[in-house]
């Protein structure tokens, strides 16, 4: 009887302990982001206050207004950066998806010699650190005159994203049973028609999430962009973030506001595809 009760109490205690641990972990994951949002709404005096002000006295959108009001009045050319980021990320994503779909389909549906070797080789190109790749790219781009252009960055990001989109899309095509396309071909479709009418629609959610992944990589990239861009012609948002730093001071409030602008599109997109993302990457995990 007594042993029964003490074991029940111990069980309840561990359950509470584990719940508290989970809560703490989630708080640590969420707090930094909320802190950024909060500070983008507070006046600078309050951010700098000593002793610290924990409960904000006033919240306003001054930082956002200043940011969007252009270079003259304390802002940065955020609209130009935003436009560059969108153009570069979207274009490079579309191209990387087209190339990745072809490559992923080849890996999922065809047998050929040295397949795993090719796959590994493709992946290894992704391991080259951005900063190491930027040295020769900088030199070549300077010779070709495509430094500080959209084209240059798009090209670099396509190459960055291709290995990963191939991996993801390969996983999704492998989940689509081979028989379906074969049945369509027996019914008189060409291989091309069978692909577009049977296999592509089934793999579409996966392809969409590969696209989002590629978009986020391009949207967030810094090491290459910081060297291959010079001006508002092609600077992207992550590089633009540095505009808020001077030699010894940083405009924390403005930076937080720009951070929020950067995060919102990424948040919306990731939320939209979160379900498919993991299943694509783990598709081959157990079946191999």
């Amino acid at each position, binding site marked *: 009887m007594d042993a029964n009760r003490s074991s029940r109490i111990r069980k309840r205690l561990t359950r509470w302990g*584990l*719940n508290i*641990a*989970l809560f703490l*972990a*989630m708080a*640590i*994951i*969420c707090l*930094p*982001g909320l*802190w*950024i949002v909060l500070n983008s709404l507070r006046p600078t005096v309050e951010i700098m206050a000593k*002793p*610290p002000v924990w409960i904000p006295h006033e919240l306003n959108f001054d930082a956002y207004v200043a940011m969007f009001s252009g270079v003259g009045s304390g802002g940065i050319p955020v609209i130009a950066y935003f436009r560059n980021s969108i153009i570069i990320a979207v274009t490079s994503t579309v191209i990387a998806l087209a*190339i*990745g779909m072809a*490559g992923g389909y*080849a890996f999922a549906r065809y047998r*050929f010699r040295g397949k795993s070797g*090719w796959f590994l080789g493709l*992946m*290894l*190109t*992704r*391991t*080259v*650190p*951005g*900063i*190491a*790749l930027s*040295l*020769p*790219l900088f*030199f*070549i781009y300077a010779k070709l005159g495509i430094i500080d252009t959209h084209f240059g960055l798009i*090209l670099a990001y*396509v*190459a960055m994203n291709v290995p990963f989109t*191939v991996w993801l899309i390969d996983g999704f095509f492998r989940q689509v049973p081979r028989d379906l396309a074969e049945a369509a071909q027996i019914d008189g479709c060409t291989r091309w028609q069978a692909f577009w009418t049977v296999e592509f629609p089934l793999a579409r959610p996966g392809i969409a999430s590969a696209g989002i992944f590629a978009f986020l990589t391009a*949207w*967030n990239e*810094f*090491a290459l962009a910081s060297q291959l861009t010079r001006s508002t012609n092609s600077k992207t948002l*992550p590089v633009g973030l540095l505009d808020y730093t001077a030699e010894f001071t940083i405009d924390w409030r403005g*930076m937080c506001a720009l*951070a929020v602008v*950067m*995060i919102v599109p*990424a948040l919306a997109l*990731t939320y939209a595809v*979160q379900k498919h993302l*993991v*299943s694509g*990457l*783990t598709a081959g*995990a*157990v079946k*191999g």
Partner: protein
Amino acid sequence: MKPWRLSPHILLLLPAVLVLLAVVILPLILSFWSSLTPFRLTRPDSIYDFVGLRNYARLMGDGQFWSAFGRTVLLLTVALNLEMLLGLGLALLIERASRGQRILRTLLMFPMMFSPVLVGFQFKFMFNDNVGLVNNALQSLGLTNSAIPWLIDQHLAFFSIVVAEIWSSTSVFAIFILAGLMAMPRDPLEAARVDGCTPWQTFRFVTWPFLMPFAFIAMTIRSLDVARAYDIIKIMTDGGPARRTEVLWTLIARTGYADSKMGMANAMAYVAILLSILFTVIFFRKLAQSREQIAAEW
């Protein structure tokens, strides 16, 4: 003579291979050549001046380079292992939560959306010795009166960088391990309980082997992209103060762009590339191994 045609898989792979050849392989060949010259951006002719392995030989005797190299390996080892452990713990915690799993999983994705630059700034802000969240909290709670120099002291700065790195990437591990937990068949677990395994034994000999491929997928994805840490470090300390948190990548950027010693920087870059490839190949092989083991057992 029959007309020569490319087989379809080659045709399909061709665009990927061409792009990677043009944007990655060719530049790497160029950078390998320039690592054999004393090339400087300010003197373009110096790229034709072949000096053999002199840059590499100089690197071998360069204390600064080796300490950056050691620090990089240390950072990667510490960060990846901790991320794996914490991610595993987090995934197990979420898996046993009875309610709100969907919401928890969505929150888990949160740090993944943050650009590494943003993570750098965010933690630079929070660890700021004057206005940062961490010091403010410690002082308000009365734990300390002094402003702890998180980003200025050598060890504290390294610690801060590791914290930022872990914050940004633990959820990758948690998400994949969670996916593994969800996909796991229940029967072996029940069989283990019937056979009288303790919870620890069940985890060690039933759950963990099944989760391994998922953990190694996360590892592989992370190792494909370890150099993202450059962005974080560049923003938080830029290798400073006085090079005390210098890693390979910040050293490359400094040598190549600030000192414009491109030849030397390219030699360092090759060492960094080999290091990344080594990490990735290790995890790819472990992934293949654990897959085979699973396939044999289940």
